């Protein structure tokens, strides 16, 4: 499946947006978390600053999100995991409300209840979870619902290679194949589950090889490249939409930051992250666009200005929104 000009430009712009979003968050997150303004003796205070709590950034992993979401409609479901920003942005989650959520503001997607690992935007059918492996069965449910409701919507479960060792992953694969569900499982192999390398956690080299055991196609995308992901996902999504059942895709991708912001990364070879940035997928797609005369300095600059305006507006919105009232903690345990 060949990407159209429009799709290529969309992927490029989204990747630029995701990157700027994550790089901005990397800085905002550190505000007020470092000495000397924190408890004496601490090197870092996770609970301080305008965006407290854990923060898992997805810079470097943009191709997975855009290559898959380029095929999706608003009524397709995406279930992400604890590192969700790139998927959310590629699925057109409301950027302002998503950012306000991470600031814990009343205007956030979850009115400040969820935070960055728990983003819910029913308007575009996006959700995610901080529990590793939890999303795969949930995507099966969305796919099952699509079929029962008679639509041709599909569901995507995105998760890391670490999650592929959870029982939930294996149960979901069997369910999906057994029931021939319109679902695509997308594994992001960024080499690590926190500090544990894939080679130390997974008995075989590629999760794509596991697909055969469940009776579905397995595809390995060996390059952290938006077009390569686009092509693999195009087949899988089309197959799901035709009612022919699930596909498992694994993409080899790169994590530029630590597992979470503030991770000392002592388990990672020095300079690894820097070396990975030599193969940055954004300039790579930019070069492809230029080679086809779809991008030049001027249009690139215009695109970046546009993206910056969106991203910075979202951060301003988050920062300037009001906090919820403390007693609002009591609301929303049950639906009315």
């Amino acid at each position, binding site marked *: 499946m060949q990407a159209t000009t429009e799709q290529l430009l969309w992927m490029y712009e989204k990747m630029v947006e995701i990157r700027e979003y994550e790089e901005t968050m990397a800085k905002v997150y550190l505000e007020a978390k470092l000495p000397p303004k924190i408890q004496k003796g601490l090197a*870092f205070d996770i609970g301080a600053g305008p965006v407290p709590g854990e923060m898992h950034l997805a810079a470097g992993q943009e191709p997975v999100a855009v290559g898959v979401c380029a095929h999706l409609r608003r009524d397709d479901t995406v279930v992400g995991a604890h590192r969700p920003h790139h998927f959310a942005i590629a699925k057109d989650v409301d950027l302002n409300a998503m950012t306000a959520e991470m600031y814990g503001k009343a205007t956030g997607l979850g009115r400040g209840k969820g935070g960055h690992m728990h983003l819910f935007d029913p308007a575009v059918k996006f959700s995610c979870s901080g529990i590793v492996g939890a999303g795969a069965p949930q995507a099966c449910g969305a796919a099952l619902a699509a079929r029962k409701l008679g639509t041709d919507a599909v569901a995507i479960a995105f998760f890391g290679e670490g999650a592929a*060792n*959870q029982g939930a992953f294996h149960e979901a694969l069997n369910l999906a194949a057994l029931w021939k569900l319109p679902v695509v499982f997308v594994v992001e192999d960024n080499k690590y589950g926190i500090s544990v390398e894939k080679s130390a956690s997974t008995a075989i080299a590629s999760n794509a090889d596991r697909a055969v055991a469940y009776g579905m196609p397995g595809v390995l995308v060996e390059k952290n490249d938006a077009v390569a992901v686009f092509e693999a996902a195009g087949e899988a999504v089309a197959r799901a939409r035709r009612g022919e059942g699930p596909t498992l895709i694994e993409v080899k991708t790169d994590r530029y930051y630590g597992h979470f912001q503030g991770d000392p990364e002592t388990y990672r070879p020095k300079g690894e992250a820097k070396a990975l940035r030599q193969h940055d997928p954004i300039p790579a797609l930019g070069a492809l666009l230029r080679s086809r005369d779809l991008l030049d300095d001027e249009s690139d600059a215009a695109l970046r200005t546009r993206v910056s305006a969106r991203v910075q507006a979202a951060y301003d919105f988050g920062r300037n929104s009001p906090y919820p009232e403390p007693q609002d903690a009591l609301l929303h345990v049950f639906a009315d």
Partner: protein
Amino acid sequence: MSTTTTTRRLTMAQAISEATAQEMARDPRVFVMGEDVGKYGGIFSATTGLLEQFGPERVMDTPISETGFMGAALGAAAEGLRPISELMFVDFFGVCFDQIYNHIAKNHYMSGGACKYPLVITTGIGGGYNDAAQHSQCLYSIFAHVPGLKVVVPSNAYDAKGLMTTAIRDDNPVIFLYHKGIMGLSWMSYFEGSTNEVPEAQYTIPFGEACVVREGSDVTIVTLSQMVQKSMLAADQLATEGISAEILDLRTLVPLDRAAVLASVAKTGRLLVADEDYLSYGLSGEIAALVAENLDTLRLKAPVRRLAVPDVPIPFSHPLEQFAIPQVDNIVASVRGLMTFKLD
């Protein structure tokens, strides 16, 4: 403890690692497994230094497969090994609770005592740093509710070391829950009262012995874990108002030192339970019921009061989380409230 023993100030995380290391050195059957317990040294530093000292055969990084390695802990324990299996956050028990409550907790009983499962599950609990509903719970009451699990919830480094040593030597499954906000981590603000003098030598603290961490005469605060440290700060403040609070640190929920609770309440006549778990159907209700069952001998000067998470998931946003999790000010206000009653 002999007075000649060398002591050092340790964080609770250091105390737990030290207890584990010393017991691993003493007993070759002990080994550790869990996510990021090796190279990383445990996300909450409960296994720091162990890999370097004992190597990857005895300190095993696992895949993210909680059902797998909790079940494996049971299987290895049945064969006479003494596994310590770390569940990174207690919240993740949902993934593997079948192994824990249907098997680890019950197999000894169902075997009529024939089989033994000497294993320890260590796990991080608690909120206060905006990690939201899936990473901030305490949940010790759920484990205590299930018959067959011993439940340990230390409040400071000294207790943590002695209780951890006891836990590893116990022939029963023990769940050892450490609050992240008293581990003394370099990346999370914590209550400094949890870092204290810890003897270098091994020692044990028996299960089922609560500790009066502060004596008082007007009111008993029954509590545990990080809430002990909050209660100490509250008691300081109350003292300036002329209110004398006694603080009872339960230290273990199973077994529970009922006698200590009753003795303290008999002395003060007032009870506040300060808990970071959910309010309903949990620890605070258990303690209140214990007192209610003994009203034939106890004389209360005020009704029992409970402070706990008001039956909502832990919210992310700072003001919401501060509201949901009881704070020092809430303890102070609750005690003041208790002092206004005149039952007699």
